[in-house]
């Protein structure tokens, strides 16, 4: 465990070096933005819309006290979406989708000697393969999370239109009530950290994969589990640091 942590930081030191050719780096970066970011939009829309809808419905149907104002539904949906659901839950979902993809891609390159081929040519394989992925995640994850926040609140809106549990006007009033811009910064900061964790941890497990197809599969599973656990720990630490 401690050995792996040390190996991870040594790997990061090699990843964050100057790319050999910037032109190639930019091309790889845009490619990774497509693969990691743009291709994740459908799952973010799907998850966020339904989760936002469920949060609004649960809150509305469980509000039995007449002392609670009707706009509470909107306020709770907004708070839980911005503070936790969009940055954390979406990152956990993306850890499953992107993390396994990265670990299996790099792991397959390792066992089929493609990484050795890069090294023999004199290419810094870690910098070439991992840095564009990390930068793409850091740049695009916040966009995905803002997108998720919007879709979640929209999901809540439409679920209330369909259920008629409370009026959409009070829902929108609740969303706007007590809105703090600082919460958005907090969410985006977390997202950048989570994006970095997902890509770097998954790359680590893929890069050091050994054996054959079975071991690549195992590395992929380990990458997802380790990414998720790291996200949960980082979430706890960041919440302590930023909000409290």
């Amino acid at each position, binding site marked *: 465990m401690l050995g792996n942590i040390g190996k991870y930081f040594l790997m990061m030191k090699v990843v964050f070096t100057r790319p050999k050719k910037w032109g*190639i780096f930019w091309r790889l970066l845009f490619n990774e933005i497509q693969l990691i970011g743009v291709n994740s939009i459908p799952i973010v829309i799907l998850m966020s819309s339904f989760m936002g809808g469920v949060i609004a419905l649960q809150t509305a149907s469980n509000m039995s006290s007449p002392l609670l104002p009707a706009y509470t539904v909107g306020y709770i949906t907004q708070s839980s979406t911005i503070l936790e659901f969009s940055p954390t839950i979406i990152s956990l979902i993306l850890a499953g989708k992107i993390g396994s993809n990265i670990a299996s891609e790099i792991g397959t390159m390792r066992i089929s*000697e*493609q990484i050795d*081929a890069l090294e*023999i*040519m*004199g290419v810094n394989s870690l910098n070439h393969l991992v840095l564009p992925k990390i930068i793409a995640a850091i740049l695009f994850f916040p966009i995905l999370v803002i997108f998720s926040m919007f879709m979640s609140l929209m999901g809540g809106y439409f679920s209330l239109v369909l259920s008629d549990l409370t009026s959409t006007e009070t829902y929108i009033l609740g969303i706007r009530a007590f809105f703090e811009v600082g919460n958005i910064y907090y969410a985006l900061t977390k997202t950048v950290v989570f994006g970095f964790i997902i890509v770097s941890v998954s790359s680590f497990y893929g890069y050091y994969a050994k054996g054959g197809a079975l071991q690549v599969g195992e590395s992929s599973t380990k990458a997802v589990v380790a990414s998720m656990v790291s996200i949960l720990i980082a979430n706890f630490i960041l919440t302590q640091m930023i909000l409290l």
Partner: protein
Amino acid sequence: MIEVKNINKSFKEQQILFDISSTFEKGKVNLIIGQSGHGKSVLAKCMVGLHEIDSGEIFFDGRDFAAMDRVEKTQIREEIGMLFQGSALFDSLTVEQNVMFPLTMFTKMTKKEMQDRVDFCLDRVNLSGKNKLFPSECSGGMQKRVGIARAIAMNPKYLFCDEPNSGLDPLTSIVIDKLIKDITYEYNITTIVITHDMSSVMEIGDHILFIHKGNNWWEGNRDSIINAENPEIINFVYASEFMKKIRTSMQEKKHI
């Protein structure tokens, strides 16, 4: 020329290479042969720096590779071409992009110059017109040839081939062997081929290093290996019943 001196290599507690020394000359096809698991590939990977050696020296034309740092090694590696056992082509790139890859990474050639070089290399391995195929669309023999084209794209001084004939039929193997031999002589490069294919040994072995249990067991060429008296060499060269019969009949003829 590549010289290795007193190379030792262990993985954890298990020592794989024991004090290996040899010289691989320029303009010759140098073979490293031996049974599977006896250290051939480990030696080659040590030579190109994919494995760190425990002790010893590796000289590329007098330059001490083992003593270099990562940046200095990178400069030497730009002079090395390598054909891997499984070809190691980049799946996501076409044949043309695979061959062009080292050129885009390490040269300042214009697109036209790179294209000309790629076309030349593909033509050299008889793959003209296959530029747009992906590796998954190529046969095993074609993949090996693309691997060779990629390996020679940068005009390497040193060419390493790790079991170039594995998984190929005998006729395609001969084509690959001939290609390696022709390229070595044509460009006067130092070629090292790791193999246990006896037809390759007889076809292209200008200098042969036989590794047995991690030791430099025997050195010679394709003529001397036939008559070698070393029992391990005999077991290796004449492994099949068919080859044993040939050896017996050869010996009988000698006595007559």
